[in-house]
């Protein structure tokens, strides 16, 4: 339960950062589908994803590998990556 809560918190935070940094409209952290494909459905590109990764690194005190973040194309995948890095 705690683990699940934890990933949910991270998902909400990642969604918040994404909305803030990329100025996404008509979506809130709670309504942001964590499994939606950010590239196909939202139109996010590599520069956007790099920006979000840099901000999240600061927030969580962890590091994304340059080769890994381009493959993290849903909020859930990003959150799981962060969780793994923190554990």
């Amino acid at each position, binding site marked *: 339960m705690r683990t699940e809560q934890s990933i949910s918190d991270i998902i909400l935070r990642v969604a918040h950062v994404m909305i803030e940094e990329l100025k996404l409209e008509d979506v809130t952290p709670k309504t942001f589908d964590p499994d939606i494909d950010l*590239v196909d459905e939202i*139109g*996010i*590109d*590599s*520069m*956007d*994803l*790099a*920006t979000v*990764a*840099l*901000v999240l*690194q*600061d927030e969580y005190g962890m*590091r*994304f590998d*340059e080769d890994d*973040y*381009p*493959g993290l*194309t849903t909020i859930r995948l990003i959150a799981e990556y962060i969780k793994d890095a923190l554990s």
Partner: protein
Amino acid sequence: METANNQKNRRNNEDGKWKFSEILADPIVRERWEKVRKFFFLRESTYDMSNHCNIRCEGCYYFEGNKQFTAEIQDPLLWQELMKKEKKRGITYVVLAGAEPSLVPSLLAVCYQEIPLGCIASNGLNKISPLVDYNIHISVWGNDETSLRVRRAKNMLQRQVDNYRNDPRAIFVYTFTRENIDEVFEVAAFLKKNDCRLTFNMFSSPVGYKGGLRHTEESLSRTREAMLTLLAEYPNHVLFSHYNAVAHTHQYGLHVLYDCPYPRMNPSTDIGLGRSFRQYRTDLTWDRNMACCVPDTDCSDCRHYAAGSAVVTAKLFRHAADPETFKAWLDYVDTYLSVWVRGYPKGKNLCNHIMCPPKAETRLKN
């Protein structure tokens, strides 16, 4: 190549690494970051417009490989249809290139009508209608004597300037070859006198090229010196930065230094250029295995300015390592936008010393 300035910038926190927020804490850096990031929406593709040209230059990319033999589609309606499809798949920026786009004005007009951000690569011998409000890159390969020899065109620079003096779309692009390095000074002085803006390109050998224009370590070093001298001498007319000079005159080409993300060198279709970039031929087809901004270039020798504009810019993550490296990258992106985007004003460079491309040292040891 790392300078004392950079060493001083080293952080001494728990892991010795800079947070992105700390790098952005400098208001000048933050302001430049906000300025350039507004253009992250640009998604480019390139298009060959004609299979004929009014001159024939030694080492021209267009007349290498098979693309020169493809049929030429000159029907504006078919081009308009293509542009509509391109827009639909997310392309926001077009580069209209080979062989000579000024020879097909009706096609330029329909492209501009559908996708209003873009650039035309031209030899500058024909005037392009002011209604096509793209940036125009006018290629210069040396002084008029050299142009006559390599491009078989008389009084080339004077004719180019006559056509594009006082035209805010025009950027003159001086391509450094092994043989024309010293000529850049007279060319730059002439362009400055005529209030024309100038940036630099590097001759990058086509596959199999055996001619005398290919750069050597010595010519790369002399070219860098010339670039930096002119940047200092004409800061308001030369669109360039120290880091541009480093990236384009390094002994290793762009692919080795930055991992070229164009489809030709990048099998991934997940995100970025590997996903969206196409290079259309004159018959409106494209081939993923050939798709990059300078097809038929020998990738190991590629230092082309158009390639760098995408290849270096795409490496934001890698350059957000410390303040000086990030400033160098911001200068590069600011330069790229001022060269390619109509009306984008070049800011003052933030990093006026030599910075080593990040990861380059590790990479070159392996």
